[in-house]
């Protein structure tokens, strides 16, 4: 079995005059947690949107290890992505607001439906069995993420932290091979972020799902990631383990400014301490 699950080569996308993603290449190996980091506007979510086929790349390709071997993801229609085993969460929570949490999760099971229109209209035994099976699968995810008491709540009334978890749960219900998490810890407090770290590790270890993540919280990144790609203004700066990337001078400059700025900061700090 091939080691590489997703392979992006020379990805670029242009919106009018803006080159949002500029010649980005990376490979995501099976079973690892791969994180995209970078300051705001770096193009990380755009890369996600390219993988989800919300945007089409101007140049470059994305290849994915489908059920029958590597296929060109950029040739697929957007609604085919889920059936290929790729699920994602959104930066600004795109849940189905006027439905309950349970219904949101059941919609996640859509790619696994085996019933046709006619059997649903008459609600045959086959449909009933399919419904019960879907609910059993969804229940497993609810148990993993502790969403039991929110099962019947309308999503619109839930607090932000819970909605983030519901979004994760919905993505898990699709039984993905590759999970795209867009800033899973944004808006969460320290405890919730810790929970998220545990869940991501569980998803990787117990469920065997490969995770591709965009994240700003360096603590979370260091805790869960196997490899990191740093981006800035559409271009990739460095790829490697979290420690390697964090020590890369180009990355430090993108975040903190040039070495001169940093050393002048250190001099100021010294003065204050003295």
């Amino acid at each position: 079995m091939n080691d590489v699950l997703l392979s992006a080569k020379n990805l670029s996308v242009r919106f009018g005059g803006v080159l949002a993603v500029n010649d980005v290449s990376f490979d995501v190996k099976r079973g690892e947690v791969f994180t995209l980091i970078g300051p705001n506007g770096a193009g990380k979510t755009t890369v996600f949107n390219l993988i989800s086929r919300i945007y089409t790349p101007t140049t470059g390709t994305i290849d994915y290890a489908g059920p029958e071997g590597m296929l060109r993801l950029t040739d697929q229609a957007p609604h085919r992505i889920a059936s290929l085993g790729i699920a994602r969460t959104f930066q600004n929570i795109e849940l189905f607001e006027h439905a309950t949490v349970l219904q949101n999760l059941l919609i996640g099971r859509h790619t696994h439906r085996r019933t046709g229109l006619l059997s649903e209209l008459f609600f045959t035994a086959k449909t009933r069995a399919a419904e019960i099976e879907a609910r059993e699968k969804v229940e497993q995810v609810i148990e993993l993420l502790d969403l039991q008491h929110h099962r019947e709540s309308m999503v619109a009334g839930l607090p932000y932290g819970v909605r983030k978890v519901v979004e994760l749960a919905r993505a898990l219900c699709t039984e993905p091979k590759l999970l795209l998490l867009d800033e899973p810890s944004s808006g969460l407090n320290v405890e919730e972020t810790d929970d998220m770290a545990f869940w991501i590790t569980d998803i990787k270890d117990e469920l065997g799902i490969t995770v591709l993540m965009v994240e700003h919280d360096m603590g979370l990144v260091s805790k869960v990631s196997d490899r990191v790609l740093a981006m800035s203004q559409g271009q990739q700066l460095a790829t490697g383990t979290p420690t390697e990337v964090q020590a890369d001078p180009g990355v430090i400059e993108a975040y903190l400014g040039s070495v001169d700025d940093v050393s002048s900061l250190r001099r100021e700090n010294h003065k204050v301490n003295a």
Partner: protein
Amino acid sequence: MQLLQLLISGVAQGCIYGLIALGFVLIYKATETVSFAQGDLMMVGAFGGLAAMTLLGFPFWLSVPAAIIGMALFGVLLERIVIRPILGQPAFSIVMLTIGVGYVLRGVITMIPNIGTDTHTLPVPYAGEVLRLGALVISAEQIVVIGVTALLCGGLFAMFRYSKLGIAMQASSQNQLAAYYMGIPVKRLNGLVWGLAAGVAAIAGLLLAPITFVHANMGFIGLKAFPAAVVGGFTSLPGAIVGGLIIGVVEALSGFYLPEGFKDIAPYIVVLLMLVLKPNGLFGEKLRKKV
């Protein structure tokens, strides 16, 4: 020559559609609502002018501004009482509300004893006069319509470009929250926009009155103004006028050259063509949710 004659009447009719469509677009840009009440506001404006002249006995040159200002105030009131509380509801519900407002306006006008369902004439000073240019016959009403529309567009353009109020309205329609933080009184501006839209509708009504006479079902012309707004693009003010002109001309031409019945549905066929070829209209912008 026949063609030119048709074009002129098409342009005149198109100006009316364009004015109503202008109201639609103004309201849509400011409050994200589609107001199905514009046609009926136009009708009330026409009746307002009629009332000013017959009941209050104002001369024509006083009735017109009185009707326009009256309608503008009514528009502000409408926004305050009925529209502001429901902003944020699904677009469908808000559309139904404006349809309800239209029903009420039509119903109340019909209930007023001396109006009922009869047709009335607005006694304008230029009624019946025509201008002859060779074989071409242009009625004074048509000249007034085209002239006033051009003036109004010029005025609005100047206002939006050069006046503080106009710039504030533009800012508010592009990013309400940012405008609010800059100190622009967004809610009050929304009221003003509705007032402006109602005023424009009143002008359209007063211009149309000499041509189609004043009656309670005048407002159904508003339904033809929707194709105008769609053709122009729902987010573009000049687009509304251009759309109106296109629809007016298409209607005039199809009334003459195509078999009977096509005249009424020609605007709608244009809409469908537009939605297939250029879904956001000629000048509209594509709004896509950023995820």
